[in-house]
């Protein structure tokens, strides 16, 4: 609603209401004022009237009092004329006189009475004066005169006064009563009326005031709410008068305000966001600045410290320099000492760097190789030194690689020779050791020591060939002994006694033992001499094991033992192996298991695949190997005590041969054993099998 539309022409106009209320209020005030003024006036007039009356009565009372006093004095004078009461008499007389003058004429009716009193008073005063004179002249005798003149006159005067007093009192009482009547009966009514009017006006005014204040309160409330943020607050409709217009105008304003506010909020938020961003980036910049500042301070500090350090370091450098000189001198001396030592070593020493070039050689090397040191130093090692196997094949460089990679020292195969300057082959025993930096653990090269082993080699060869020849030579007589013993036992030379048979059986057994021993010795000799040819062919482990078991069948049946073979996986893949070699290993292990196990026991053969290996296991429940003798099992001719008792005819060579063979194909052999419980032997074969090898003979003798 357009607030400008309706004007105060409406009867409901608020202004009109206010004016009306105010008018009523004013009228009431005027009426009330007028009434009170009238009443006040009335009161005032009553008041003055009463006051006048009172004064009148007081005056008359004064007359009475003075009269009484005069009487008393005269009385006294009459009795005692000598007393001087002149002063008192004069005082009372003037008093009387004054009082009489003070008597007012209040109305026409009293005029006569007042005149009378005034006259009477004058008379009395004359009488009194006369009395005084009488007393003065007559003294005591005055009494008689006074009794006839003064006292009756005084008596009469007193009565007159008293009568006037009575009359005035009565009038006074009447006025007072009239006053009381007016002010207790008549006027209260009008007072009450006025009061009622006031009350009405009060309520009316109050109402209109509220009509003003209420909306204003509401507005204030709403404003308060709005202040608090509730922009949805509105002033409820107040009608169409100004207040109503104000209210609706206010609402509209709030509405607009709300909208603007919403828009503003949006803008504010947006701006706030932007601002925050700016603040953040500013903060960031600030912190970056701070950091930069800090960094710069640090740098400055560091620079300062560095400067100091540099000074200190310069000093230290000086010291170090002189120290270095001193140490260099010592090092040089030490170097010379080492070179001297190297030169003095009885073996050939060659030091190679990581490029496999010769850096140091000693005198023995010169002697063996036939080159001078100058000819060797700086050259590539493999250009000058050619190493060959017994079979004239060159020794693979990989033997040296392990040493170069700083892993471990390498002992080269025992059959190698080196070609000297004039192409002679000299058998050598050679060890290549890595030179490792103690701190970094890196390889810095290798140091090779080697020596001429011609004599040793020859000795070894002689030994081996001796064993071969001897073994061969032994076999024929052994066969002869065996057969003849057999014939004796068989009775081919005639009957023999039981005792003779027993003796010859001992001989027969003895020859058998020796044959077995000689065969083993021969095989061992061949393997150690490196003369055994390896011809790998695909071998099925299970089949080989079964084959071996066939040859041992008699023993098995005799001891009523069972053997179980398991492979994992099944079927087990074939492995390239030399048939004779694997046969020898398997036969040795299984025949041992049988021999050292009691009757009725079980032997388990397990073949399993592990990583790149096949692991062959022979498990028996036999006498086991005592712990204190386990480390000697692979020694030549070693027999454990318990084994010796159970199988006296054993040679003690089987296990050494097995170890030689297994390690010959880069396998591992080990065992677990507990005395009285049993033994389990394990050996491994790489799944790639045995490597082919040249040789003069096969393993089987």
């Amino acid at each position: 609603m357009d607030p400008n539309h309706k004007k105060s022409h409406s009867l409901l106009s608020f202004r009109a209401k206010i004016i009306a209320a105010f008018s009523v209020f004013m009228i009431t005030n005027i009426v009330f004022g007028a009434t009170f003024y009238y009443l006040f006036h009335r009161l005032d007039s009553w008041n003055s009237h009463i006051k006048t009356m009172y004064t009148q009565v007081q005056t008359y009372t004064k007359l009475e009092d003075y009269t009484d006093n005069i009487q008393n004095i005269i009385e006294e004078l009459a009795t005692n004329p000598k007393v001087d009461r002149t002063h008192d008499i004069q005082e009372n007389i003037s008093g009387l006189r004054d009082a009489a003058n003070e008597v007012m004429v209040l109305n026409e009716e009293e005029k006569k009475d007042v005149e009378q009193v005034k006259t009477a008073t004058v008379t009395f005063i004359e009488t009194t004066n006369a009395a005084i004179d009488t007393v003065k002249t007559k003294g005591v005798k005055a009494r008689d005169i006074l009794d006839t003149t003064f006292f009756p006159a005084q008596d009469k005067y007193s009565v007159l006064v008293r009568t006037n007093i009575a009359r005035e009192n009565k009038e006074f009482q009447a006025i007072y009563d009239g006053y009381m009547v007016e002010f207790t009966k008549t006027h209260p009514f009008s007072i009450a009326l006025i009061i009622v009017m006031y009350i009405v006006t009060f309520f009316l005014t109050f109402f209109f005031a509220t009509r003003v204040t209420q909306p204003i309160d509401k507005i204030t409330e709403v404003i308060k709410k709005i202040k608090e943020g509730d922009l949805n607050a509105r002033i409820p409709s107040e009608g169409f008068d100004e207040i109503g217009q104000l209210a609706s105008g206010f609402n509209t304003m709030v509405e607009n305000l709300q909208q603007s506010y919403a828009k503003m909020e949006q803008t504010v938020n947006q701006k706030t966001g932007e601002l925050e961003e700016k603040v953040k980036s500013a903060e960031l910049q600030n912190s970056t600045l701070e950091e930069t500042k800090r960094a710069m301070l640090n740098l400055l500090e560091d620079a300062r410290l560095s400067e100091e350090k540099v000074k200190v370091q310069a000093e230290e450098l000086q010291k170090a320099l002189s120290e270095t000189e001193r140490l260099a001198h010592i090092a040089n001396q030490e170097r010379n000492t080492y070179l001297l030592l190297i030169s003095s070593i009885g073996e050939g020493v060659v030091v190679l760097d990581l490029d496999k070039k010769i850096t140091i050689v000693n005198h023995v090397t010169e002697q063996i190789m036939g080159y001078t040191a100058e000819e060797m130093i700086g050259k590539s090692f493999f250009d000058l030194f050619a190493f060959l196997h017994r079979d004239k094949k060159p020794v693979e460089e990989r033997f040296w690689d392990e040493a170069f990679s700083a892993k471990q020292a390498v002992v080269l195969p025992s059959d190698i020779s080196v070609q000297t300057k004039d192409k002679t082959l000299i058998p050598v025993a050679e060890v290549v050791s890595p030179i490792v930096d103690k701190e970094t653990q890196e390889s810095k090269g290798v140091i090779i020591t080697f020596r001429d082993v011609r004599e040793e080699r020859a000795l070894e060869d002689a030994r081996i060939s001796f064993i071969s020849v001897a073994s061969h030579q032994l076999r024929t007589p052994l066969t002869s002994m065996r057969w003849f013993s057999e014939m004796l036992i068989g009775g081919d030379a005639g009957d023999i006694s039981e005792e003779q048979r027993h003796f010859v059986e001992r001989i027969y057994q003895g020859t058998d033992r020796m044959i077995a021993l000689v065969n083993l010795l021969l095989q061992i000799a061949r393997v150690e001499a490196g003369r055994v040819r390896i011809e790998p062919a695909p071998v099925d482990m299970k089949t080989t094991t079964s084959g071996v078991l066939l040859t041992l069948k008699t023993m098995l049946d005799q001891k009523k033992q069972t053997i179980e073979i398991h492979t994992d996986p099944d079927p087990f893949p074939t492995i390239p192996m030399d048939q004779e070699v694997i046969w020898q290993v398997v036969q040795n292990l299984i025949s041992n298991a049988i021999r050292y196990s009691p009757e009725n026991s079980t032997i388990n053969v397990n073949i399993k695949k592990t990583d790149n290996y096949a692991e062959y296991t022979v498990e028996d429940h036999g006498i086991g190997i005592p712990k204190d003798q386990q480390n000697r099992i692979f020694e030549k001719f070693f027999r454990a005590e318990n084994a010796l008792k159970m199988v006296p005819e054993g040679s003690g060579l089987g296990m050494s041969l097995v170890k030689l063979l297994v390690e010959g194909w880069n396998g591992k052999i080990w065992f677990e054993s507990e005395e009285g419980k049993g033994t389990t032997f394990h050996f491994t074969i790489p799944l790639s099998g045995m490597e082919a090898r040249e040789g003069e003979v096969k393993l089987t003798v």
Partner: protein
Amino acid sequence: MDTTKTILVVEDEVALQEAIRTKMEKEGVSYMAASTAEEALVKIQEKIPDLIWLDLLMPGMGGFALLQKLRDTPDYKAIPVVIVSVSASAEKIRRAFELNVVDYLVKSQYKLEDIVNKMKSLLTFTGPAVN
């Protein structure tokens, strides 16, 4: 007709010859002996045996050379040969069977009795080697 079988034992160890001869003659087999491969050839030329007992380790030509020679000679090709040797070498065994030996016996694995019995049964079941 002379039904007695003849065996030629080629063995350089005299003691063993003695033992074998004793056994063979007990079995009623005619016995020829040679200590070397050369000697064996001479003996074969004199008389073709029904069976040859051949040792390998001999001085001179050696067992395999003799065997080869026999196989190369048409007249001697069909003579059954049993090798009796100390060696159990698979190499030797293979080579021997390539040269058509009837059997290969390792001395240490057999009692003399058993070898003799084997020879006997072979002699019984083979006809004369002469065509």
